[in-house]
């Protein structure tokens, strides 16, 4: 009897700890992250299996040159890693300036033009990737075949098209919170328009530009649908496509090693990005972590 009263009292207490939700959240985080940790762990497996632990070994990471089965000595996987990095860097280099300029322009442009441009940009954000992938594949193979061949160029063009909306969204959000005050102050003090943009607006935008660069980088390094349709020889297949092909066949743990390598690379990039971001926004009040992550929310 007292146990029942105790339970009911616990149920009615408005300041009780939400145990159910807490368990659920920790359970979710474990479900979400542990499989990846296991996959990383198995990249150090001494045997060929992904499910039976047969001892610790570095053979899939370093191994020997003659066996040519490890990440270091397998030209296939190395080329794939290099291609992934190449595609992401090029995409960031093109998409971030393009998107930033677009965001600034759209924010201030008056008239009928911005509506259409804005609509198209948002559309490119919500369209499922397979639709864009097929459309670009058909376009490059039949319409633009004399101008653009399938391969790295086509992959970069496709990735930028898919990613350009991210910088736009992030920078626009930042522009809204900045407002026009600072530029107007600069102009009141006699600066010509280009200078007020370059020396007042841009520095204020650096955090957003930086955050969007990190976002685009992380997203394009994992991108799979668009680059697969637009690849040609195996040299142009990035790691994501290699994982996909391998997972449908017989993936040896060297694939785990390659994926783990990319994981570490992305983590390092994000950490560096965050640290630099924190340095840049030193003067501002809000918690840097929350804002950095807030851009992605």
């Amino acid at each position, binding site marked *: 009897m007292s146990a029942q009263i105790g339970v009911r009292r616990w149920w009615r207490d408005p300041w009780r700890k939400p145990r159910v939700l807490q368990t659920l959240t920790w359970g979710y985080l474990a479900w979400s992250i542990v499989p990846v940790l296991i996959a990383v762990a198995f990249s150090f497996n001494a045997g060929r299996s992904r499910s039976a632990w047969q001892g610790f070994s570095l053979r899939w990471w370093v191994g020997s040159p003659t066996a040519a089965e490890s990440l270091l000595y397998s030209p296939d996987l190395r080329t794939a890693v290099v291609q992934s990095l190449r595609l992401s860097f090029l995409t960031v280099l093109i998409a971030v300036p393009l998107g930033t300029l677009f965001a600034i322009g759209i924010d201030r442009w008056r008239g009928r033009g911005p509506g259409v441009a804005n609509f198209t940009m948002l559309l490119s954000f919500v369209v499922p990737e397979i639709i864009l992938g097929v459309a670009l594949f058909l376009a490059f*193979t039949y*319409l633009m075949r004399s101008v653009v061949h399938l391969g790295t160029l086509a992959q970069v063009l496709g990735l930028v098209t898919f990613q350009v909306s991210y910088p736009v969204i992030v920078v626009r959000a930042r522009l809204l919170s900045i407002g026009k005050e600072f530029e107007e102050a600069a102009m009141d003090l006699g600066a010509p328009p280009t200078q007020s943009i370059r020396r007042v607006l841009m520095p204020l935008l650096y955090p957003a530009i930086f955050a969007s660069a990190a976002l685009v980088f992380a997203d394009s390094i994992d991108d799979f649908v668009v680059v697969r349709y637009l690849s040609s020889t195996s040299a142009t297949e990035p790691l994501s496509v290699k994982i996909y092909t391998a997972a449908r066949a017989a993936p040896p743990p060297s694939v785990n090693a390659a994926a783990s390598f990319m994981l570490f690379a992305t983590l390092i990039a994000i950490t560096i990005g965050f640290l630099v971001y924190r340095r840049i926004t030193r003067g501002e009040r809000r918690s840097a972590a929350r804002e950095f992550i807030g851009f992605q929310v």
Partner: protein
Amino acid sequence: MAMGPHGRARPLSRRAFLRRSVGAAAALPSAAAILAACTKPGTTGGTKPSSVEEDLLAHPARPDHPVTLPLYQDPIPASTPIEEGATLQVYNWADYLWPRLFREFEDAFSQYNVKVNLTTFNDIDEGVAKLASGQVTPDVFFPDPSQITKLVVSKLLQPLQHDLLPNLAANYWPEFQNPFYDQGWRYTVPYTIYTTGIAYRRDHIPDEKIQSMSNPYEILWDPEYKGRVTVYDDRRELLALGLIKNGIADVNTGDPDQINLAKDDILKLIDATNAQLTINGVYVKMAEDVFWVGQSWSGDVVAAALYYLPKGVSPDVLGYWYPPDGGGVIGNDTMVIPASAKSPRLAHEFLNFMLDKTNAWNNFTNWNGYQPPLTSIDPTSLVPKVVPPSLSEAVVLPKYFDTGSFILGVSPSIDALYNQAWDEIKAGA
């Protein structure tokens, strides 16, 4: 005419001009394309086949109807120099060519500073599609005979210069000296030969069980092995299985009823046993005891026994069944040089290199398990030297070429029937 702030009419503003020029620039590519394709489609654009070609497509090569493929260009002269510093692009099935042979080839031609790069495809349809669209531009390609006519007529292949391929005549089976699908070896050279039978794990299915069945193909449909069955993710092979299991020996039939029968039976197969469509299901997964029975090429089960079994597992655990009367599917793969090859002379050298008896033998015994039709190999001596005794039926004998059914090209309208059946299977209906 835009109106300025004080009501004065202004000439076309720069913003409006920019807007319109952006629109025009965007419209340019489509305008150009429209102009280029201005005539009604079907009259130009895409080569209209001549009557010779139409005849070839409508009446594809058959063992009793040999075909001499037309020549559209001359083979490269034998005096063409070897391309220096070139990278030979090889386009092949996955796991089908021993990687060490690439290094040996590079070493043999090290004075020309050549390299070899391999790109793989997972099924022949994908390979041909990418070759035809120009997505991949290889120097060497590995199709099977069902694709040869189509490839030649689309002018995708170049004829071979046989003065550069002395190993062909010297080393290969007489039955192959003048194949019916390419009389005179104008475009192809042979690579491997294989049969399509049933591979099974003898530790789960005793030999007697399969051999005592009146129609051993039915074991794939047996619900007792639910979840343990694999078949090939290959349009023609899977439908051929459906045809042969129902007693239809002509695996190139154009009869819609027969094709539908095969397709329905395959759908029943997937329903009854949850059969998985794979390419590596036999040589990798059956070796790992994931699958217990499956449609298998002879080379796959030999490779499984020789290289993919876990340590400590004896090769006896694998078995292979092929109709004793030799009435199953038989095939061979070929090597060709595409017309767009950037290093044709080097490609010829590679073909000759692969036709060498030692290299072909090493490829077979050290890597893919697929028998090459070399005269130096006596098939009866392969067991037990190379092929485990439990897989003796996986050895391909010359007489199978008289009794077996080749999967060959069909006319475009019949091809469409096979495509539709395949689409239905893949859509999970």
